[in-house]
């Protein structure tokens, strides 16, 4: 977890940007951890959803480079459970978008194995490309 106690203007700008993109007030998060407890993909993440929320609160831009934001599949389990009515899946989306809007792709869509392309349904490809290509 980040331990910086001095919030710089850059930190604050980052928090504001994520609030704006996600439409959430991330500072309302009380760090109860229910999002992390319910997340079906938390074991794959390098930061738990609650850590992600905390890092955004502190304006720590490293969260935008985390694996967590790409692992989140927007299953909305945290959305349903958050006692503060926050939607961490929207925060993860905002962080993904920060990357994707620089025309960065998280997956290489030209090199998906042929045998996989033959069986993958369109629904899988469309959603993966929406979430993971810029």
């Amino acid at each position, binding site marked *: 977890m980040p331990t910086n106690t001095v919030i710089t203007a850059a930190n604050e700008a980052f928090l504001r940007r994520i609030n704006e993109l996600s439409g959430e007030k991330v500072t309302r998060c009380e760090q109860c951890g229910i999002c992390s407890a319910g997340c079906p993909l938390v074991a794959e993440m390098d930061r738990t959803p609650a850590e992600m929320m905390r890092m955004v609160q502190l304006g720590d831009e490293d969260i935008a480079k985390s694996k967590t934001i790409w692992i989140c599949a927007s299953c909305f389990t945290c959305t349903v459970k958050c006692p503060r009515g926050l939607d961490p899946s929207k925060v993860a989306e905002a962080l993904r978008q920060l990357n994707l809007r620089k025309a960065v792709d998280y997956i290489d869509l030209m090199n998906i194995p042929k045998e996989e392309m033959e069986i993958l349904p369109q629904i899988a490809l469309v959603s*993966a490309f929406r979430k993971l290509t810029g």
Partner: protein
Amino acid sequence: MKIPYYPGCSLKTSAKNLEVSALAAAEKLGIEMVEMPRWNCCGTVFSLTSDDLMHHVASVRNLVRVQEMSENGSVDTTNKMVTLCSMCFNTMKSAAKRVRENAEDLVKINSFMDTEPDYNGNVQVLHLLEIIRDMGFDKVSAKVTRPLEGLKIAPYYGCMLIRPKEIGIDDPEDPTIGAQLFKALGAEIVDNPFKKVCCGAYHTVHNKDTVIELAHDILTHAQEEGGEAISTSCPLCAFNLDNRQKEIKEKYLKFKEMPVFYFSQLMTLAFGLGEDACMFEANYVDPRPLLKSKNLL
């Protein structure tokens, strides 16, 4: 009831068995689903950022088609549409909600889609399961000619049918709509503690291991509770739970295959509509041996 029907891309290919069985089952219940002309991909996932309207255009364009059908009398419902795929349902309902509640977004999208008639913001996006529930499950029972006696079904709901709360068609914490339907068909219901856990969704494209783990959990928990088959309404869940059993078996040697049904396949079976309407041959794990062992085929 004659209602505009939005199929979605996968229902024309990998999930043909969902479309064929659902159309047949719905017809039996007096619901005529009329495929909308010139529909386009819904986008499959709803964009969650506040400023991203571009990714809702696809859904709204489909809603314009519904509006046109209501106006030209090709259906007898007004501003209603039905979907079968959970993801299409979620994406389009979310988009419909967003433009209904944000007049400014609606104006922006309408002015962007300058080759289309303006969308009026009134279309209601429904899932077939909702329509059936609202008709009453007793209407379903009345059509059953071959009760699914002795078949132990573990309904699986996944994410997009029940979450987030304002979009889902059932209690996001304890959905029962599938259980009620299959009970009406005469099946035995097994409650799977993993019934609303994500299957890994599109991770199946680039991160198959995650999907294998999640699907293994979902399937084995259903089996531990005594389930003989699992049900779904989503072509992506179906792919991950059904087709990925190939990889699950390679990783977990003790894993035993388990059929994955679309909810509608169980309906056509119980309604006695014949195997052509069930399209079991399109399922990856063949459910026919199980059904034969229960004297259901």
